C-alpha cells in the first residue's frame, strides 16, 4: 500500500505514457487542411434558372473584399477553397456550374456578372453550428449596370462533439450555404428581370 503523500516511479512512467498517447492522438486529429467540396449544380437552382425566359450571361471577375475572407478554419483545421485558395473563385465556380447546367452560360454574352465576397464565415461549434456568406453581385449589360445587390446565404445545423463527424458535416454545410446564396440571387425579382 502506498503512503498517502508519495507516488511510485512506475506510476509516473504510466502517467507519462498515457499523456504521450493523448498528445499523439490529439496531434493526429488536428491541424490538417480541409478543402471545400467541389460544388455541384442543384436541381432547385437549375430549375429556377431554367424557368427564366431571358437570354444568356457570362461571368466576369470575382474578388474578395478582404484577403482574410479566404482564411477559414474548422475545428483547428484550415478550411480552404479548391480554386487557388480563393473563396471568391469558389463562388464564381459555383455560379458557373449552375448557369452551365441550366444552359444559361455564354462566355460571349454582353451581360456580365461580377461579384465581391463580403462576408465568409463558418463556425462548427458543438451544438448549433452556423455558416454565413454574402456577396455583392453586379450585372452589367455593356456599360450599363442593370443589377447591383448584396445577396446572402445563411445556414444553421446541429453539429457533433466528435470531430470526425463534425468536420465533414461542416464541409458539406458550407456548400449548402453557397447554394442558398445562389438560390436567393436567382429568386430576386430584379435578377429575374435582367435574365
Amino acid at each position, binding site marked *: 500500500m502506498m503512503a498517502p503523500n508519495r507516488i511510485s516511479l512506475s506510476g509516473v512512467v504510466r502517467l507519462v505514457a*498515457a499523456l504521450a498517447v493523448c498528445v499523439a492522438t490529439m496531434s493526429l486529429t488536428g491541424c490538417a487542411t480541409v478543402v471545400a467540396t467541389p460544388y455541384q449544380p442543384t436541381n432547385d437552382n*437549375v430549375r429556377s434558372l431554367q424557368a427564366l425566359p431571358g437570354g444568356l450571361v457570362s461571368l466576369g471577375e470575382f474578388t474578395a473584399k478582404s484577403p482574410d475572407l479566404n482564411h477559414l478554419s474548422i475545428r483547428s483545421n484550415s478550411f480552404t477553397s479548391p480554386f487557388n485558395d480563393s473563396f471568391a473563385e469558389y463562388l464564381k465556380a459555383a455560379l458557373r456550374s449552375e448557369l452551365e447546367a441550366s444552359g444559361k452560360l455564354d462566355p460571349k454574352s454582353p451581360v456580365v456578372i461580377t461579384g465581391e465576397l463580403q462576408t465568409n464565415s463558418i463556425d462548427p461549434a458543438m451544438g448549433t453550428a452556423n455558416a454565413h456568406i454574402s456577396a455583392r453581385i453586379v450585372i452589367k449589360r455593356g456599360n450599363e449596370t442593370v443589377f447591383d445587390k448584396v445577396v446572402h446565404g445563411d445556414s444553421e445545423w446541429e453539429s457533433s462533439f466528435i470531430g470526425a463527424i463534425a468536420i465533414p458535416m461542416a464541409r458539406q454545410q458550407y*456548400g449548402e450555404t453557397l447554394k442558398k446564396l445562389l438560390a436567393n440571387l436567382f429568386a430576386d425579382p430584379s435578377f429575374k428581370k435582367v435574365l
Partner: protein
Amino acid sequence: MSFPPSLLSQNSLVRFGRNAGVVGVLFATVLLSGCLSTKHYIDPTLPKIDIASLKQPTTPQPVQVFFEFQTNGTTNTKATEYVRPIVLDTIKKSKLFSDVVTAPTTAQRKLFVTINNLVNMDDAKARGFTTGLTFGLSGTMVTDGYQLTASDAMTGRDEVKHSYKHAIYTTIGNADGPAGLSEVPKADAVRLAMEGLTLNLLNDMSKSGELQ
C-alpha cells in the same frame, strides 16, 4: 523509489492517470468498433419492377436528366457522384428514351431526380457508440430511409411529379435483421435500392402515358 510530496501531488496525479486510462480505453473502443460486422437488408415494401415489364413509348424522345443526392435535405456531393451513374444507367437500360444526357441540350424533356437519404444521425451515433463500447455484444440496427422525388418537365405540357420511398436496414454487431429478409452484400445494397427507386419511377412514367 518515491518522490517527495512537494514535487507531485499523488492523489491528483493518480486520478489523472486513471482518467487518461479511461480515455485510452474509449479511443481503443472507438477504433476497434470499426471492425464490427455489418449486415444489410433491403425493405420489401417497394414493388419490384423488371425492366422488361416497362411499357415502351411509340416514339422514344431524348431526355436531359438532372440528378442530386441529399442527406437529410442537404446536397451530398460525394454520394451524388456515386449514385448518379446507377440512376443514369438504369434510365438508359430502360430504353424509354432515344437519348439520355446530362449536359445542356435541346431535348425538350427534362427529368429532375432527387434522392434524399433520411437518417436520424444522433440516434445512429448513440446506438453505434453503445455497440462499439461492448465490442458488438450489444448489437444495433439502423435504418437508412430514401425518398426519390422526380419532376418530369416538358415544353408545352404541365409538369408531372412522382415520389417513392425505400429503405436499407443495417445491423451492426450482434443484432437480428428484420424478420423474413435475406442479407444483401454491402456492395449491392445501395445499388439495388437506387435501381428499385428509379425503376418504379420509370414504370409509372411509362404506364401513365406521359412518355407518349
